[in-house]
């Protein structure tokens, strides 16, 4: 009490002023600490680890053979060009329009009729997350009672995004832990059993976290079943170009659906395939029947964006637009993507071969069957823990390995470590059996 009086005195304030902290009531008392994102937690452990040969296989960021982030030359060139570019705000919307046009061409194909006829509503978005969130809010505005069906498993943030938009989530069968592949029959069943006109989220390539993608035939069947049930397909495309190394091949699933007449929605991210993570560049497109509807849907999407962040940052958009509309830069970029995809495939092959050479009794075929940035290793939580504690190798708790972090210099160490922890578990379970 005396302290308070003195505080007031020294502040020269009149006695009637109160200090709210005296009351002992803080506004934020009821705010709990948010649960830690498991990937962030693991990443932090990695950063804190002093072991010189530690390996980070957690975050889905691509690294080159030396373990360094990969910045393709065309980006440095583009950055230099932009620096000299005098931007007027009035040009922002022109740049954005050009950006959307280039993004949509990339996704649906240069000669796609939806692009030629303008049968899409497209807006730039804050990378993949932002595009998904825009769509989720849009879905809520116009279908407030709808659900979203997410594959099991999926990128965890999908759950957060739709939940935050107040849309309930249901999952559908996807990954088969026994085969470490696609549980196709159960997937088709779930599609058939869902109520007509349900909203579904699909990964068109390089499924995150499993790396398990349907074959072309399977995609056609899925598309057909969607037609029967009149479901809405929403694609989250985060790895176009770096899954197979071929832009068109990676968008095949999306294009199959479009050919079949579905009016899809698609979130595109340029974080991984252009290495523009920090610039938050993405695009949301929703196909429509005619141009008038396209304008209406676009206006609604812009309205939602307007009350969230107004407009996305221009820098990344400029970079992408510049690269996609310059034939030389675009060619160079395609080459760089092939390099990235090939490197990852090479690492998959090497890792699998190393494990087989170590006479591991487990089946490691899934390492090369799965595609894209991630390998769903099938390792159990305790094995993942052992890898971290004993070998200083960090991956997601669900056993997801980011292949981008595997290099020629660490792949042997990694194979050996995986072999050791699986042998330990195997030995332990043998012991248990023998005890009975």
């Amino acid at each position, binding site marked *: 009490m005396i302290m308070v009086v003195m505080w007031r005195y020294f*502040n020269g304030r009149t006695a009637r002023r*109160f200090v*709210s902290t005296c009351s002992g009531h*803080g*506004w*934020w008392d009821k*705010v*709990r*600490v*948010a649960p830690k*994102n498991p990937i*962030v937690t693991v990443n932090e452990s990695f950063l804190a680890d002093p072991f010189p040969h530690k390996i980070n296989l957690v*975050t889905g*960021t691509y690294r080159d053979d030396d373990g360094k*982030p990969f910045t393709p030359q065309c980006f440095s060139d583009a950055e230099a060009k932009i*620096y000299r570019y*005098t*931007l*007027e*705000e009035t040009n*922002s919307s022109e740049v954005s329009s050009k950006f959307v046009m280039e993004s949509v061409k990339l996704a649906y*194909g240069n000669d796609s*009729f939806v692009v030629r006829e303008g049968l899409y509503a497209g807006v730039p978005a*804050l*990378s*993949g*997350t932002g595009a998904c*969130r825009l769509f989720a809010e849009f879905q809520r505005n*116009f279908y407030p009672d709808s659900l979203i069906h997410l594959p099991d498993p999926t990128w965890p943030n999908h759950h957060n*995004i739709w939940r*935050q938009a107040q849309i309930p989530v249901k999952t559908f069968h996807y990954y088969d832990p026994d085969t470490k592949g696609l549980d196709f029959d159960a997937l088709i069943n779930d599609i058939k059993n869902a109520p007509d006109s349900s909203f579904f989220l699909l990964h068109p390539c390089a499924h995150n976290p499993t790396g398990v993608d349907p074959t*072309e*035939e399977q995609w056609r069947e899925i598309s*057909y079943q969607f*037609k029967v049930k009149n479901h*809405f397909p929403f694609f989250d495309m985060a790895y176009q170009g770096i899954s197979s190394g071929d832009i068109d091949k990676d968008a095949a699933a999306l294009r199959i659906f479009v*050919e*079949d*007449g*579905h*009016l899809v929605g698609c979130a595109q991210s340029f974080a991984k395939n252009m290495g523009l*993570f*920090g*610039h*938050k560049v993405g695009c949301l497109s*929703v196909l*429509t*029947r005619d141009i008038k509807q396209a304008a*209406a849907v676009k*206006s609604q999407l812009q*309205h939602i964006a307007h*009350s969230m*962040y*107004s*407009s*996305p*940052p*221009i*820098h*990344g958009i400029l970079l992408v637009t510049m690269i996609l509309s310059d034939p030389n830069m675009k060619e160079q970029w395609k080459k760089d993507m092939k390099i990235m995809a090939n490197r990852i495939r090479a690492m998959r092959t090497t890792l699998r071969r190393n494990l087989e050479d170590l006479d591991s009794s487990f089946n490691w075929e899934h390492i090369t069957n799965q595609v894209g940035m991630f390998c769903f290793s099938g390792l159990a939580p305790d094995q993942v823990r052992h890898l971290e504690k004993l070998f200083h190798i960090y991956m997601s708790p669900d056993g997801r390995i980011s292949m981008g972090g595997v290099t020629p210099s660490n792949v042997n160490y990694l194979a050996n470590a995986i072999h050791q922890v699986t042998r330990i578990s195997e030995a332990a379970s043998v012991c248990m059996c023998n005890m009975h």
Partner: protein
Amino acid sequence: MASSVLSVATQCVSPNASSVSINETHKGKAKLGGSTLRFSKSSGRISMTVAVNVSRFEGIPMAPPDPILGVSEAFRADTNDVKLNLGVGAYRTEELQPYVLNVVKKAENLMLERGDNKEYLPIEGLAAFNKATAELLLGADNPAIKEQRVATVQGLSGTGSLRLGAALIERYFPGSKVLISAPTWGNHKNIFNDARVPWAEYRYYDPRTVGLDFEGMIEDIKAAPEGTFVLLHGCAHNPTGIDPTPEQWEKIADVIQQKNHIPFFDVAYQGFASGSLDEDATSVRLFVARGMEVLVAQSYSKNLGLYAERIGAMNVISSSSESATRVKSQLKRLARPMYSNPPVHGARIVANVVGTPILFDEWKAEMEMMAGRIKNVRQKLYDSISSKDKSGKDWSFILKQIGMFSYTGLNKNQSDNMTNKWHVYMTKDGRISLAGLSLAKCEYLADAIIDSYHNVS
């Protein structure tokens, strides 16, 4: 018909089909009956496509156009030479060109030379930026910062930061209202609506005096249920340009404390109002010095000209460092399903400018220059109107108002006259953006205003 359809379809199936037999694939298609079958050419081969479904979004109407951006569009479409754009609050030079600050160019040059990577920022944004922005707002030696009671999260400019704050309110104070000034920036309502936070208005603008309705403001804040969030403009109120005096700020703080309300500042013009970064932060610092818990959204769109880079911050100043930590974790949790992590470019520019003493000094000088130009334009406009208008009307509010905007007191019809007759583009509420006015055009504008005020009702 059915058989010919099937035979066409058969040709399309790839020879690798194994898991699904051809018959199974297509036997269901006959059931579709009612839909007309369409053939379309794609990828160089004929494929049978089932009719395009009726779009799920058939009934979706056009969203209303944004009133402010609509003004710019109309201006662009106008071919008349004398046209003047006083719509959007974006700074223009005397030559009415957009202005990229020199310090921004220098900072970007530094960044280019360094070849900074493009990796993801953490969810809360660039640490160097967060530190710089909190210190800029509160002063580096502010006890709140020293005691680590400030939770700062990088946001997507002012809008994005406000939205984070709104989301926090929605989650932790469900049912609590936000009180916003009448009038206020148009997007405030959209932000709170979309965040599902209810709002109500407090009286602010007095059309009779073209000044602040202070009594009305205090009454309305007092009348609000305890624990209401009160949205305040830190300086250079948008759209009116009317700010409370220091004494009035003290009284506003009094009543907010008495009613146990929580102040929520929108600081979009720090440095731009008076020309001094510190002076423009006085209102926020006053509240914080009293030990109040405060939310503050910041934007660097205007004062660093970084409109298109979307850089700002959400700050929550609370009563303990422990609670600041918890709040920050929840802000991050709200950001993650919005955009995962914020964009890096603008944050680096700000961090470089504020963190490099030479650049920081240069920035302060440039800001004084920008604010100075606006003050000069105000003066010239006032002088022009006063000398031309013989009616005895008091136009001194032009000088009393501060910042980029001026509420002229013109009504909708008069504003329309400004546009239709004089090709002066402004918003229908009578707001003009002085940032879009040059000294050279003050006489012309004076004529337009006088004509609209006196000859149109």
